[in-house]
């Protein structure tokens, strides 16, 4: 909203007004003493009531102060008393439950509007109204009017009148109105309402009604209005594309994949009755738009038409989908109850969680999903509830969806590089300020498994490979002590617009990251820190090899043209200054886990610009230099007994017989 603009002003005024109204209503309910200062109070007697476009219009007679004191029935309708048109909003009307002959006291501030060319003034801003009840008659009245529906009178001027087309013959009239009103197809049927009276009732806000009335054939004209709760991508079901990159099918595959992923954009929508449906839209060529669509569409209204029912699935068959639905249950605002007239009293939030869900898809040819991005966010929308990791881990739930911010510390591909990118599983080690600052009984970092069914955008995969990222995990699954990212989980780099955050901003990490120290509770596939003393060296595992300084490829080959030079197939270039990687397994004695044999694979790297020597004359020089350097750094004798500082490690395995922990030194992102 513009600063200092009218919209901002009205917002502020509105908030103040709303507080005043709820205070007033509270006073009315609790029968507190309304200030007896009757100045400015408008006293009216209702003669007639009807509703128009959600506003209740009451034709009333203004009563003088004195006559209001007597019983309302005794007040004779004096034709000289002024007639007023009093407007009430839907909420006020529900609160008042007024009937003809009721006497209403309208407290200030109310407004009077005098329209041109009319005699009857209009009274508005009637929030502070109260009905004067006579106890002995109220019961009878309740019985009589209990089931009466509000009269709805629509004073609609037909377009024919507006354009003065009454004198043309019917056919021409029909045609002209069609032409003059440039209808969008979704309302074209209403223009033909004379010939198709059913078309008007075909549009509604109930998914179930749509499905049950049209059958599996699909429908065309009818439209449903729903709220988009979530936007995500699902991997397409028709298998995966085998991944071959460039001209080297055997090359180690980096995470970044240039092939277009086979995914479909999907929406989880909810109608006014609280029922959910998953709508599968078009296949995406790039997953980068998912975040965009999410930002623009979540929470907004959407009009669906021309949908085909793919499946009616139940809780037992689609656990993933229903875990997401459960996270959105119960609805945050009352929903309609099917089959009842929609009095506000009938709406409820007290319904059992859904047990079935329709999966819809687009009918080929007709694509009709119109998202009203203009409209405000619907009240029914439930943004993901963000919690700290500490809270999530403590929560005893099972298969529940959770959303959180976390800093990615370390990344590990769980599957071999030869597995196609669509089937890779990634293990992320993450932390946040709640875990880092926790005193005890909480791990400092937690593993999040990203399965292949969780679609990652190329932006995310690139970011993950590059540096430590602060990621927003939306609707991850928590259960059995693990957090996993599966279908319908979305990873984002930026915070979604609307998020209910519990507590302070959880994303800031103050200070360097600390990991749990290795101890008796450490498990495999986790990360930890350790310190200890070197008690042994596994010389047979001492190894050094050159890696490409550009891409880190460890499988360099000898250049075909010049067998003295190294060549990197991933970069397709000669490696002039390879980095030397050295690896050694050492045995440590760690006080924190003194009973076990600790074997750590330590790594080290040195840039090898010093190694660039002309080796044509002395071919063995390179190898010799390497060995010397290696020995210099890791001369066994000098290494024994050395204190190894706090090393960050990944735990490969923990075995009890023999009591051994195998770790690998890692570098946190």
């Amino acid at each position, binding site marked *: 909203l513009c600063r200092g603009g009218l919209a901002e002003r*009205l917002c502020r005024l509105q908030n103040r007004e709303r507080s005043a109204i709820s205070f007033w209503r509270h006073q009315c309910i609790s029968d507190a003493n309304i200030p007896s200062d009757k100045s400015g109070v408008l006293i009216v007697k209702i003669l007639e009531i009807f509703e128009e*476009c*959600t506003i209740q219009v009451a034709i009333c007679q203004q009563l003088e102060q004195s006559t209001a004191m007597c019983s309302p029935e005794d007040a004779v309708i004096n034709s000289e008393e002024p007639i007023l048109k009093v407007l009430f909003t839907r909420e006020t009307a529900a609160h008042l439950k007024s009937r003809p002959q009721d006497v209403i006291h309208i407290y200030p501030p109310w407004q009077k509007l005098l329209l041109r060319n009319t005699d009857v003034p209009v009274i508005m*801003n009637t929030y502070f109204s109260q009905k004067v009840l006579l106890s002995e008659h109220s019961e009878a009245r309740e019985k009589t009017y209990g089931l009466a529906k509000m009269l709805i009178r629509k004073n609609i001027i037909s377009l024919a009148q507006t354009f003065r087309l009454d004198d043309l013959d019917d056919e021409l009239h029909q045609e002209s109105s069609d032409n003059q*009103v440039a209808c969008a197809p979704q*309302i074209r049927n209403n223009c033909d309402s004379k010939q198709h009276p059913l078309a*008007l009732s075909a549009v509604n806000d109930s998914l179930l009604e749509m499905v049950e009335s049209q059958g599996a054939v699909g429908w065309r004209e009818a439209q449903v209005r729903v709220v988009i709760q979530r936007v995500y991508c699902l991997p397409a079901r028709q298998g995966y594309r085998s991944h071959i990159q460039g001209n080297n099918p055997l090359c180690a595959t980096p995470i970044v994949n240039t092939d277009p992923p086979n995914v479909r954009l999907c929406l989880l929508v909810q109608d006014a009755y609280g029922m959910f449906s998953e709508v599968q839209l078009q296949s995406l060529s790039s997953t980068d738009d998912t975040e965009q669509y999410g930002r623009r569409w979540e929470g907004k209204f959407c*009009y669906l038409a021309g949908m085909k029912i793919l499946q009616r699935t139940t809780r037992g068959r689609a656990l993933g989908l229903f875990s997401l639905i459960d996270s959105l249950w119960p609805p945050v605002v009352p929903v309609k109850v099917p089959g009842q007239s929609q009095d506000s009293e009938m709406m409820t939030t007290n319904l059992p969680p859904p047990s079935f869900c329709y999966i819809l898809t687009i009918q080929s040819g007709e694509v009709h999903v119109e998202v*009203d991005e203009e409209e405000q966010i619907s009240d029914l929308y439930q943004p993901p509830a963000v919690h700290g990791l500490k809270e999530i881990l403590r929560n005893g739930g099972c298969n529940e969806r959770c959303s959180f911010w976390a800093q990615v510390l370390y990344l590990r591909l769980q599957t071999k590089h030869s597995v196609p990118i669509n089937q890779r599983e990634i293990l992320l080690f993450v932390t946040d300020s709640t875990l880092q600052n926790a005193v005890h009984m909480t791990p400092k970092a937690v593993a999040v498994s990203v399965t292949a069914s969780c679609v990652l955008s190329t932006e995310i995969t690139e970011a993950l490979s590059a540096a430590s990222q602060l990621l927003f995990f939306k609707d991850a699954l928590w259960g059995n002590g693990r957090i996993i990212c599966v279908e319908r989980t979305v990873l984002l780099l930026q915070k979604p617009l609307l998020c209910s955050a519990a507590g302070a901003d959880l994303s800031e990490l103050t200070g360097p990251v600390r990991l749990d120290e290795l101890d008796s509770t450490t498990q495999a596939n986790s990360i930890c820190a350790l310190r200890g003393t070197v008690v042994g060296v596994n010389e047979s595992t001492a190894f050094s090899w050159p890696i490409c300084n550009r891409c880190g490829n460890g499988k360099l080959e000898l250049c075909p043209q010049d067998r003295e030079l190294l060549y990197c197939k991933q970069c397709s270039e000669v490696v002039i200054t390879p980095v030397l990687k050295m690896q050694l397994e050492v045995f440590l004695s760690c006080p924190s886990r003194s009973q076990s044999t600790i074997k750590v694979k330590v790594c080290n790297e040195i840039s090898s610009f010093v190694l660039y020597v002309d080796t044509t004359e002395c071919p063995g020089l390179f190898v010799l230099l390497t060995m010397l350097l290696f020995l210099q750094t890791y001369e066994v004798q000098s290494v024994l007994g050395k204190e190894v500082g706090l090393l960050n490690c990944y735990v490969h395995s923990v075995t009890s017989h023999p009591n051994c922990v195998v770790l690998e030194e890692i570098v946190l992102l």
Partner: protein
Amino acid sequence: VPDELLLGLKFIFGPCAVPALDLVDQRSVTRVMSPSGRTLYQVLGSSGKLYTCYSSCHFCTCPAFGFSVLQKSESLLCKHILAVYLSQAMGACQELSVSEEQLTGILLAEEEDEG
């Protein structure tokens, strides 16, 4: 503009009021005129989409109008139409003169888009 007027707008037009005022603040309403005197209004919505509102009757090309106003009769008008009226009242409309062909083009383009 006195506070009471703003609250009055809110009372009558409900949820349309604030967004419509926002559109007016941002001067999003343009009156498009052709030499023959035909006019229509174009409103630049918050998502960047341009909606057309007619001057001779209540009509707007936004989906909210079609749904809330025409079908459900939940609202009297949509925020774009309200913004048009407010801009007219406050003299905050931007003006644009176009040729007859261009005006016709705008009106017909709407039909093509939806079709």
